[in-house]
């Protein structure tokens, strides 16, 4: 196998993944891939199987059926060398409350030292990392005394201290203020662009998914019902564009399939009488709602996968 093949080999490869507890089917044939350096957002309603999927990929849960390969190995049979290449940020940690922030980060970083390679020195420099996540001034505080947002940033720092090849982020920005959120997005972009880290994140914040992810997967009822960039998802739902305007002091709203044509006709007909014009493209939120709703009203419908070539 030459180097190009290694580089282009998917970091995550999930093929027809199934998971059920007794009669209860949680995952019903999930299939997707993640390429090196790609940022993937996994969206879906609560109970759609997001956490289960991630836990299977992390090697924390055994699947019922299907093929899964993460960093070239089956997570169910992977070893500690494999584990050292993963970073994991769970939804809520409350552990190590008595430890100092820097003390904890330095201690947990030390576990990665035997797995350091020339191309990926492990662990990261602890003080640099604290600066990156904006915790330098809290370095000597106890982890248990941090605010919710600060604690989350410490969790993210712990997740990446081993310079992971693949990072799992489960609702990473819950409890962040807008500034912290923006800083976090910078960190994610830097990881993906500079370190080539592949990132799989779940979020309920669709704006965040749109900003961070190269590709969005929507999981509903244990199946991937959409797979593509935010723009492709909105094309997929043939998103109607909302047009608002006013005429003679009266306000109107129209959902147009072809907004450009509709607006041209509007001006042809009424000319200067038109005011307050607003054309709003369907957002990722609209696409998401439509796709999830489409699934919920007809669960038997075959999903229409949109394979995207970047």
């Amino acid at each position, binding site marked *: 196998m030459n180097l190009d093949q290694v580089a282009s080999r998917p970091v995550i490869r999930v093929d027809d993944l199934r998971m059920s507890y007794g009669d209860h089917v949680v995952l019903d044939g999930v299939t997707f891939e993640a390429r090196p350096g790609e940022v993937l957002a996994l969206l879906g309603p609560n109970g759609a199987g997001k956490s*289960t999927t991630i836990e299977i990929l992390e090697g924390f849960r055994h699947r019922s059926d299907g093929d899964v390969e993460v960093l070239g190995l089956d997570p169910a049979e992977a070893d500690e060398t494999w584990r050292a290449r993963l970073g994991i940020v769970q939804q809520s940690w409350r552990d*190590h409350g008595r430890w100092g922030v820097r003390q904890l980060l330095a201690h947990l970083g030390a576990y990665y030292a*035997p797995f350091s390679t020339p191309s990926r020195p492990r662990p990261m420099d602890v003080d640099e990392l604290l600066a990156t996540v904006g915790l330098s001034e809290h370095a000597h505080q106890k982890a248990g005394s941090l605010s919710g947002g600060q604690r989350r940033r410490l969790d993210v720092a712990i997740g990446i201290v081993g310079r992971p090849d693949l990072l799992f982020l489960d609702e990473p920005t819950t409890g962040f203020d807008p500034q912290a959120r923006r800083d976090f997005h910078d960190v994610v972009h830097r990881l993906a662009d500079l370190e080539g880290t592949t990132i799989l994140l779940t979020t309920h914040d669709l704006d965040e998914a749109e900003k961070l992810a190269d590709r969005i997967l929507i999981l509903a009822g244990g199946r991937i019902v959409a797979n593509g960039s935010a723009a492709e998802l909105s094309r997929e739902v043939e998103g109607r564009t909302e047009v608002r305007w006013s005429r003679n002091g009266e306000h109107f709203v129209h959902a147009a399939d072809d907004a450009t044509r509709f607006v041209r006709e509007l001006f042809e007909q009424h000319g200067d009488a038109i005011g307050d014009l607003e054309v709003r493209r369907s957002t990722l939120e609209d696409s998401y709602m439509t796709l999830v709703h489409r699934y919920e009203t007809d669960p038997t419908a075959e999903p229409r996968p949109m394979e995207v070539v970047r």
Partner: protein
Amino acid sequence: MSGVTSLRPSSTVLHAVRLGMRRGGIEMLHSLTNRADQIWIVVMNGIFVGVLLLQRNSDLGGTSFSLAVATLPGLIGMNVVMGGWMGTAQMLAVEREDGTLLRAKSTPNGMLAYLVARVTLAVLNTALGLVIFLVAGLFLLPGLTDVPVTGWLMLLSVFLLGMLATMPWGAVVGASVKSAGAGFGLTFLPMVVLIAISGIFYPITGMPDWLHPVAQAFPVYWLGAGMREALLPDAAAAAELGGEFHTLTTFGVLGAYAVLGLLVAPRVLRAMARKESGSAVESRKAKAMQGWG
């Protein structure tokens, strides 16, 4: 990638063991500098030292020794059960609930280091209690300076074997309970009962006969008896069951607990670790919150 896979597992395992020991040491320092822990250490040990003070002038049944002379080794034995069994069970139950264990699982060789840290901390904690009791004993009970080297060696062997006999079972309880609260209830109450019937604070010969075999089925009694044998003169054997020390049975029972525990605990721990995941921690947290609300 090939560079990573050629790593010798033994060196990474050794690295993890070292980190685990460092972790146990750091946690010990946290405990010693934590106000609540300090109060607990002072109050608990204060009570026990107070008991020694009060018993100084009572006689150990049928001998010329003061009761306190027999209670001190009993306390040292009891301390091993508290640190090894109760401490391990509670720590494990709490750290499953707060996600420490999941964190260990997410870290390369983290589980191994975690277990090493648990053992390190339990031994350090128990050793601290041992030192406190011995220092108090040196001031209160002059006979302690006459204990021969063989007596101290026996104390050390009973201490270490006692840790081996109790820690694995603490781990089994801690890995099996559903919540930290249950971890406390399931260890603290049986502890109190066992201490009461095992002749720690008062010679077991004062207990009804039918309770003797019950007490003798558990390590608490044998740790007390072993420590008494280590620190007391031969004449004190008169207050023991049958009027003599049972060296072989002491090591036999503690050894059996240790061997069985070391066989069972790894399986239970492995099963527990397998089940540990983010959603498991979440659901336990949700249940704990319901309990509070």
